[in-house]
């Protein structure tokens, strides 16, 4: 949607935009992320799946700087970002959303958007007092951009409402729209479909697809296999803090290791359960 995103298209010649090597993170004796290695290609939608406790969200938290890894290396667009603080990583264009949406409840929808705009002169304490004319100009430009995005995400009627009054689905939309205010090059979506009604969910995925077409890179953690198989070009499967396999949705669907990871050791009920997770939700079946 912006020229920056168009530029990201230039990377789509196989050079990964995000590379994580042997990333480790433990809480006390529990290894949440236990040597995860993966790479993400630009301008694609990559799904990160795995059973509960596989370390997906922990991995997100390490990549975005919310947790400091115990080991390993992460680079974004060729620069090492391991252990950098969250705000520094976000400013580089690697932006995340949260599993439990973090809309800023007692701020209006428009203020939520305006807050996310990068490089604001008025965010420095002295220029906030001393340079009102510069700020006014920036604010007008940011407001215009925010309103455009709210229009696109069908939140324009809500712009002056407190974010707390939005429904769960609308909050997810707001979070994505707010992330876009930052002009990111890559967005990590942590369970974007959780608690979202199907109509809003479909709209959200539509936006994600469109943005991908314009050059944005997405990684999404998602439990809804229907969504995963439908929208993603690549699926990475994590279990016990490690990447166990990756490939196209079709390759992953039939991979025995994946099935084992989701269901544990084999048994009579396994086949049935597999049906439930993969087969029945198969979009073409």
């Amino acid at each position, binding site marked *: 949607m912006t020229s920056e995103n168009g530029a990201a298209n230039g990377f789509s010649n196989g050079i990964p935009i995000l590379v994580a090597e042997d990333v480790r993170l433990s809480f006390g004796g529990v290894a949440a992320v236990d040597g995860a290695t993966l790479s993400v290609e630009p301008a694609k939608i990559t799904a990160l799946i795995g059973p509960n406790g596989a370390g997906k969200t922990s991995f997100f938290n390490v990549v975005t700087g*919310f947790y400091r890894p115990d080991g390993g290396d992460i680079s974004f667009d060729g620069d090492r970002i391991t252990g950098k603080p969250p705000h520094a990583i976000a400013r580089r264009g690697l932006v995340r*959303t*949260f599993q439990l949406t973090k809309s800023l409840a*007692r701020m209006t929808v428009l203020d939520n958007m305006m807050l996310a705009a990068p490089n604001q*002169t008025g965010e420095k*304490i002295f220029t906030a007092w001393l340079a009102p004319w510069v700020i006014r100009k920036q*604010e007008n430009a940011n407001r215009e951009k925010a309103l455009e995005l709210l229009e696109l995400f069908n939140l324009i009627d809500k712009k002056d409402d407190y974010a707390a009054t939005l429904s769960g689905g609308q909050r997810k939309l707001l979070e994505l729209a707010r992330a876009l205010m930052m002009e990111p090059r890559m967005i990590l979506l942590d369970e974007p479909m959780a608690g979202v009604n199907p109509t809003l969910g479909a709209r959200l995925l539509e936006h994600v697809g469109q943005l991908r077409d314009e050059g944005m890179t997405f990684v999404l953690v998602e439990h809804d296999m229907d969504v995963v198989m439908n929208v993603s070009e690549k699926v990475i499967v994590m279990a016990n803090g490690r990447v166990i396999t990756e490939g196209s949705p079709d390759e992953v669907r039939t991979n025995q290791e994946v099935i084992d990871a989701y269901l544990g050791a084999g048994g009579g009920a396994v086949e049935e359960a597999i049906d439930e997770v993969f087969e029945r939700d198969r979009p073409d079946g």
Partner: protein
Amino acid sequence: MIPYIEGVILTAGIFALLAQGLNLHWGFTGLINLGHVAFFAVGAYTMGILNTQFEVPLLPSFLAAMVAATLMGVIVGLPAIRLRTDYLAIVTITIGEIFRLILKSGPGVSELTRGPRGIRGFSNDFYFFRMDIGLGFLSPTQYLLLIVWVTVAVVGVLLYLLIKSPWGRVLKGIREDEDAVRALGKNVTAYKMQSFALGAAIAGLAGVFFAMDIGSLAPDTYLPIITFQVWTIMMLGGSASHSGPVVGSIIFWAIFNGTLFIPREIISGAEAAYLRQIGIGALIMAIMIFRPQGILGNREEMALDK
């Protein structure tokens, strides 16, 4: 009677300043600060020590008081980098008390502060100064009252501009959810420190005026009760409201001193002293029950869940 009322309005102005600083911490940034009295004390003592023992002139000692309070704000702000909610409350209340005890008997410090004996003799220059600027027709109290309330107005306008600016928007964001604000590329730690430092500087200035008002400095003036009074004022007026601290302070001190106007035939002086505490307590309860957002707070905002 008139000088007495002037004195009350003066105190209300000093506490309005304190509440303006606290409102920046709590109302706009969501930082629980129960050690506000430390900033008040550090401002007062910095001015007093510089003026009496190092013969620093008035205005530079005022500025130094604000700088010292700012530094104190950064020190108190350090735990706020990691701590939130009740944990931060515990740490800040402790810092406030530690600071008072250091003023009282800290090795090396009590020589400067003269410990419990306190400091006096710093206010003469300040009051004589009114002759030089043609305000000699005012009584000392009226003169200080004027300066304090002009300061309240100036601070109020500056804070209003700041909170309306993108800087203020970041603070409100931190109040709502600091991790979300981090994820939006803002250096949350830096903003928390700035909020702490600026609110502390305002409280430091209030401390200078307070010292001028009572004309002496003693460590045990700076008890935690002052912090709680400021919190009451802020909640009464309405946190995150710009005029709340001012209105809250006037009402608080009116009630606090109002009991003195009850004729002695009805209640004795000692009883009146208890009655004021009861009055304030009842007021806090009434506010919490009937108007939890405070007199000027935003009811809609208050009713929203995170």
